[in-house]
């Protein structure tokens, strides 16, 4: 039957045309199209991953920021506490130093007072012994000629009196 017998002419043309079509499309169409579609799909995938990453990063960023703020507040508190401590310490130290200094001054004052007192005592003694010698000299000018020995004697006598007192 004619329907089932392939016609030579058509087979010939079909083979030729199909081969040409295949060569043309395989060279100029399919590789470009498939490559572009693949490249675009890759780009879209990359874009989606990028967006997701960015989103998660953003979420992380707010979390991080909050953590940072909390940490900063903690630090601030610590610093304030430390400052307070330092203040009291400084005041304490200053007070101590002041006491020490005051004590030193007082001591020095005491020493100088003591010295002054001793000096004045010495002077007083000298004057007293002079007065006594003058008094004694006037009383017995002739017997008591050596002044120096007499002053020493008077001083000794005065020390005795002082010790008695």
């Amino acid at each position, binding site marked *: 039957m004619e*329907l089932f017998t392939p016609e030579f002419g058509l087979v010939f043309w*079909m083979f030729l045309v199909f081969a040409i079509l*295949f060569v043309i*499309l395989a060279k100029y*169409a399919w590789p470009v199209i498939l490559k*572009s579609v693949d490249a675009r799909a890759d780009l879209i995938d990359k874009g989606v991953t990028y967006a997701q990453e960015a989103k998660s990063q953003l979420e992380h960023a707010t979390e991080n920021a909050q953590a940072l703020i909390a940490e900063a507040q903690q630090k601030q508190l610590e610093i304030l506490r430390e400052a307070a401590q330092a203040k009291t310490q400084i005041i304490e130290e200053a007070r101590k130093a002041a006491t020490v200094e005051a004590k030193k001054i007082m001591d020095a004052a005491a020493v100088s007072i003591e010295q002054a007192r001793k000096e004045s005592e010495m002077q007083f003694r000298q004057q007293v012994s002079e007065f006594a010698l003058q008094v004694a000299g006037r009383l017995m000018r002739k017997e008591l000629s050596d002044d120096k020995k007499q002053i020493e004697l008077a001083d000794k006598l005065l020390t005795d009196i002082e010790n008695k007192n």
Partner: protein
Amino acid sequence: MKKTILLRIALLLVAMLSAPQVWAAHDESEPFDAKETIFGHLLDNYGWEVPFSHHNRIPLPIIVCDNNGDWSLFSSHRVMHGEEYNGYFIPAEGEFKGKIVTRDAQGNIYRPIDISITKNVMALFIATALLCLCFIPMARWYRKHPNGAPRKWWGFMEMIIDMIYKDLIKPILRDDAKRYAPYLLTAFFFIFFINILGLMVIFPAGANLSGNIAVTLVLALCTFLVVNLTGTKHYWKDMFWPEVPMWMKCPIPLMPVIELFGAITKPVALMIRLFANMMGGHLIVLVLISLIFIFGTMGTAVLAGTTVLSVAFSLFMNLLDVLISFIQAYVFTILSTIFISLARIHGEGEKEHAK
């Protein structure tokens, strides 16, 4: 809106009812020959019929070479109505009915080598041109717009290409997908285009190309060549020296014969499937339309009834054929892909090595 649709349907019905009557009045003298008409449409022709005129056809070039080796090229209108040109003519009866023949020195009729541009060849050219016009500018567009997404027609085409490549070729062929994709895509779109063009009835389309065994033969042969020329060592070893008991392959090559037979039946099945499906679709539509003319002689009431029924059924069949057009192209591609993947087997050791 509804009114206009109703009006259109009414007009269509009027046209449907009146057309056969016009036809019947016109051709009262010769009775309607359903078989002739149907096969006239299914088979190849040297001219291309135009609507509303069965006598006038678009002439196409005839290229023939007789036994003496002389080539002739002439227009088909010279031998159209039983006329003879340079000894070539188309007999209306006999063994070579409808084919161009000539006489040798003894006066015996024989068929020369005939590579005429017939209706089917012309349709083939048109389909090929359409494919090139569709996909080459598309490729250029992609080159101009890197990472761009085409819209409308090309977007639709891209969807189909993507479907064929990602859902069919890639999962089956894996690493070989890139290598075979051009052939498989070309085959798919070629078949799809000629199927759809075959369903449109007026001039630039309407040739029963995929329902012609020569076309499907070449397509199946191409798949056969691709499968067997690019088959791996193991494919050939499995064919001629499979791992079966010695008695099955040594004195009488039982398994090799079976395997060889299998290798040939695969493309034959491809050829027959596509041919029969498309031819069957065309045949059913033609028969349904012919019913109108067969019943046309039985009076107006019967004619009207058959017309409505036939048109409804053939419309349904045509819609079904649109579906079949796609499915058959898809089936041809999927089977070709599977046959290729079967020929691309690697031995166990090699597979392990590849991993």
